[in-house]
Structures are given as C-alpha cells and as structure tokens.
C-alpha cells in the first residue's frame, strides 16, 4: 500500500501566485525500543512546482524537538550532523530522506513509537510553509516504507578477548 499525500500547499493566502506543489510520499519512522530518547524519520519529498523550495524544520507532538540531519560516509566511518539550514528541494525534483542518508531526527521523545501506528509530523518548508504529514511506524529495523523487517537476521557473532 502506498500512502500518497498530495499537499497542495498555498504558502500564504496573500501570495497565491507563489503556490508550491510539494508532495510527500512513503513517510515512515522506526518503532522505538523502550526508553529510546530519539527516533529517525524518513520520507520522499517531490517538488512539482517551478520554484525551488527548502525543508527547514519539523515538529511533532511526540517529540520535544526535531532536527534535519545529514549522513556522510568516509571509509568505514559514518557521521551524522544537524543541517541547520535544512535541505534544498529543487523545482521539478524529488529528494529522499532515508535510513542510509539524510533524515529527520525526533529528539526528547515523550512517548515511544509503536509498530503499526501512524503519527503526524508537521514539516516546515521555506516557500510552501507548513505541511502536515502522517508517518507510518514500521518495525525497529525498517529500511523503507514497505519493509516489514522480516527475512533479515543478525548473523551469529563470536566474541573474544583482545588486550
């Protein structure tokens, strides 16, 4: 099943000519483990309009704070950093926020996210303004919107003393 949210957002009633067509699809979060203070949010944003836009922030009632984070890889090292200026959503293009790339970080969680529920997140765009998006909560190891997490097991490891 694919959730399609066509958010035809009019930025301001006073400026109807700058209407942006922002579409958000396949928005999901991972279920959180007990006591988890943070959770990631993942989605695809398409800009159908003819003006560049920018995702500048997010908020949700289950989180005290939300940030936009980038993920960079170099060698075997992965780093995650806040993007205070958000993410550009160029006109006519779509941008993916994924488990292996840039993503939303929900912080100071005031409750856990349970698999199967849907939570509402308000995204803020520079031009399109605020867009309310339902996020489907998937399994703790979900990699994509329709990933049920099955079929992937953690291989048996082995320990050992190393001084």
């Amino acid at each position, binding site marked *: 099943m694919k959730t399609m949210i066509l958010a035809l957002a009019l930025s301001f009633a006073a400026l109807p000519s700058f209407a942006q067509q922002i579409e958000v699809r396949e928005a999901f979060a*991972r279920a*959180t*483990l*007990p*006591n*988890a*203070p*943070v*959770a*990631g949010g993942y989605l695809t944003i398409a800009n159908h309009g003819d003006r560049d836009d920018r995702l500048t922030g997010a908020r949700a009632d289950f989180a005290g704070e939300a940030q936009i984070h980038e993920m960079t890889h170099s*060698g*075997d*090292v*992965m*780093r*995650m950093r806040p993007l205070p200026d958000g993410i550009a959503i160029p006109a006519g293009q779509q941008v993916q926020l994924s488990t292996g790339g840039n993503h939303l*970080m929900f*912080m100071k969680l005031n409750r856990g996210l349970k698999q199967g529920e849907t939570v509402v997140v308000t995204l803020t765009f520079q031009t399109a303004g605020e867009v309310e998006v339902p996020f489907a909560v998937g399994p*703790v*190891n979900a990699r994509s919107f329709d990933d049920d997490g099955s079929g*992937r*097991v*953690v*291989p048996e*490891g082995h*320990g050992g*003393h*190393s*001084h």
Partner: protein
Amino acid sequence: MTAASSALYRAVWRWHFYAGLIILPFVILIAVTGAIYLFKDEINDAAYGDLRLVPPQQTQPLAPSAIAAAALGMHPGLLRAYAPPAAPDRAAQVKILGEDGLTDTVYVDPHTGLVIGTAWDSGVSGSTAMWLVRKLHSLEYAGWIGNRIVEAVAGWMVVLVATGVYLWLPRGRNVGTVRIRKGAKGRPWWRDLHAATGIFVAGFIVFLAMTGLPWSGVWGKQFYDLSYAAGLGMPDGYWNDIPVSTVPMEEALDRAPWIAERQPMPLSTAAGGVPVGLDEVVRKVESLGIHAGYDLAVPGDATGVFTASVYPDDIRQERVIHIDQYSGEVLFDMDLSGLGTLGRLAEWGVSIHMGQAFGLANQIVLLIACAAMVLMCISGAAMWWKRRPAGSLGAPTVPADWTIPRGILAIAVLLGIFFPLVGLSMIAIAAIELGLAATRRLRTA
C-alpha cells in the same frame, strides 16, 4: 688479541652481521609502527574527535538503556557491548552486530541520545587506522606466519643486543664507545654511531622485546600456560574459563515441581534488543568502583554473563567483573592484585610497552627508543654498505679450522630453547652454512 679470542670475535661478528641484516627491515617496521601506536589515543582523538568527543554538559547523562536504545534505533542489530562515556566530554560507545554481519561501534552523545556516527569496531585499537598499525606491528596482518616472524625477530633482537654488547667492548682499540671518535669519517663514523647508540638503547631493546613476547603465538602461549600451571599466571575467570550464568528454572524444575511455572527472569531478556537489567548492571559495576573507560559486554546466549572489563593507564586499576545475567550476582571480580606474580609482571610489562603506565614520559622515552632502533638499522646497514667488497656480500669470515667453543654452543642452545623460534632459525642458518661449506670443499677438492 689471541688467535682463539680473535676467532670468537669474528664468529660473534658474523652472527651479528647475518642476524642484523636479515631482521633489519622487520625492526624498522616494528619500531615505526610501535612509535605510532604509542600515541594511538592522541591520534584517535585528533583524527576522530568529532566521533569520540562531545560538548561537556553539567546535566546527568541519559541512562545506559536509553543510550543503547538510541544506538539500536539508528543502527539495528544485536547489542554486543556498552561502554559508558569515559569522561564528561566523551561519547558513549555502543557495539552492535549489524545485519550486515559486521560489528560496528556506534558513538552516542550521552546527553541528547543523538547518534554522532558509526565506525567498524576495531576493538582496543579504537580506529581502523590504529588497528592496521597494530596488525602491522605484530605482522598478524600477514597471517600467523607473519606473527611467527615477528616473534623470531623479537628473540633475535635480544641476541643482537647480546652479541652487539660483546662486539662493543673496546678491548684497548681506538673506537668510539659512548660517543663518536673525533674526526671519524665514513665507515668508522657509522660504526661509532652504531656502537654508541646501541649501548644506550640496549636495555630498552631487550625490555621491549621481552614485554612484547607475551603477545606472541609460541613464546607467549608457553609463558601463560606455564605460569598458569605454576599458579603464577592469570587465574580462571580473568580471561579464560569465564563463569556461566545458571538458568534458575532448571534448578527449580528438579527440586520443586510446583514452582516449575515460575519463569526465569533474566536481567538480560532483551526488551527489544536492550537487556532490561542494563542500567542495574551498570549501577552495580560502578558501585564496585570500576575505573572509568570500562567496557560492558552483554551476554551472547542463555548461559552468558555480563562482563565489565577495563585496562586503564593506571595498571593497578585493571579489573574484570562477571555478573550472572539472571540473578545479577557478581560471579567474579578481580583486579591486578589478584593475578599471579608472572601474570602481574606481564601486565606491568605490557602497560609500559604500550606507553601507558607512566603517562607522557613513558611515551616519549619509548618514542626515543624507537627512533634509536631505526638509527641502529640505518647505521648498521651503512657500515656494511661501506665495507662490502664490490660484487660480494662481504660477510665476516671465520677461519675454516675454527671450532665453536663449548661455552658459546651452550649459550646458543639455551637461547634456542628459551626463544624456540630463534632456535629454529639458528638451525636453519647453520644448515645453510654447513651446506655452503660442504659445496666449497667439494669444489676445492
């Protein structure tokens, strides 16, 4: 010099020459990688500070279970170990076996719960780069055979020091002993540099070789086995024979059928991947006074235990604690003072060898020793290069009729037994020598 002592001098020189020439490239490798690894913490903090360091805060950090949950949320997998922040400005490290089969270290800001990043878990080395340096130092990078070569090289370094000191004895000659002769040029200059550097660094070379050997495959294993057998090594439970957690239901089933329905309540029953007792276990080991910077391994199976271990710079704070995953009971708790004499000596040796025991002074002194070893290699090679006749190896010769004095033979045999890989390589070199001598005799006959 009498004929006999002159022949002995030439024989020692010959062994010093061959051994030195053969192990020279390995000594340079060991000295350079060792010098780097002395500063691994400083290098890791400089190169990966953005992962390892966080802005210090006055507030209480998040609970270990929250930090582990945050890490597993961003990097799904199996929790293997949790290392609390070693200082207020350090990240917590959560080791997770991922779905890709690799164990990664996930760095978490203990105040916000944000994952700062992940890196392949390189164990005690702290980074892939330092892991590589360590594997080159032991030559384990080239498999077990590489490690055996390094073990033989360590033994030969002791032989080189012994033969070198013998050759260094001035015997009334006009040679440099503790400094280079005035006006020396060319080969005499290199010879004096080699001799004078050598006499100062000899003790350090022997110390580093001997304290490095406990890591080795043959000597090290024998050392630990023999000291264990003599009751002077590592007690059971420290590294080996780790105690197991007993599942309470098994006992209950035997003795009291009516209580069989009582389920065991393992502290480690994963509540979505994080042992529910993680916070309790952390509280417990910290109440026992474990040194900061410890690592807590979580049980891997039904009989596994929580193991908190720490090998800090202050070696006396070294500690291993095992905790039953069901009862939370402390099954084993030992620090350095609980080890046998030889085990304790080995741990002190290892700590100094790694530049930890005496802080920065320890690191600097050993860095100088490493530099001196490289200088020994360069000056030794230069001496040989300058005196080598064109088109031949220029090894020192011994008179054909010279026989090995019994005393020297006894020392060689003892050395060969004490350093089995030195013994093996001595036999190999002797076989080559005898073979060459035999063919020479055949040709001249």
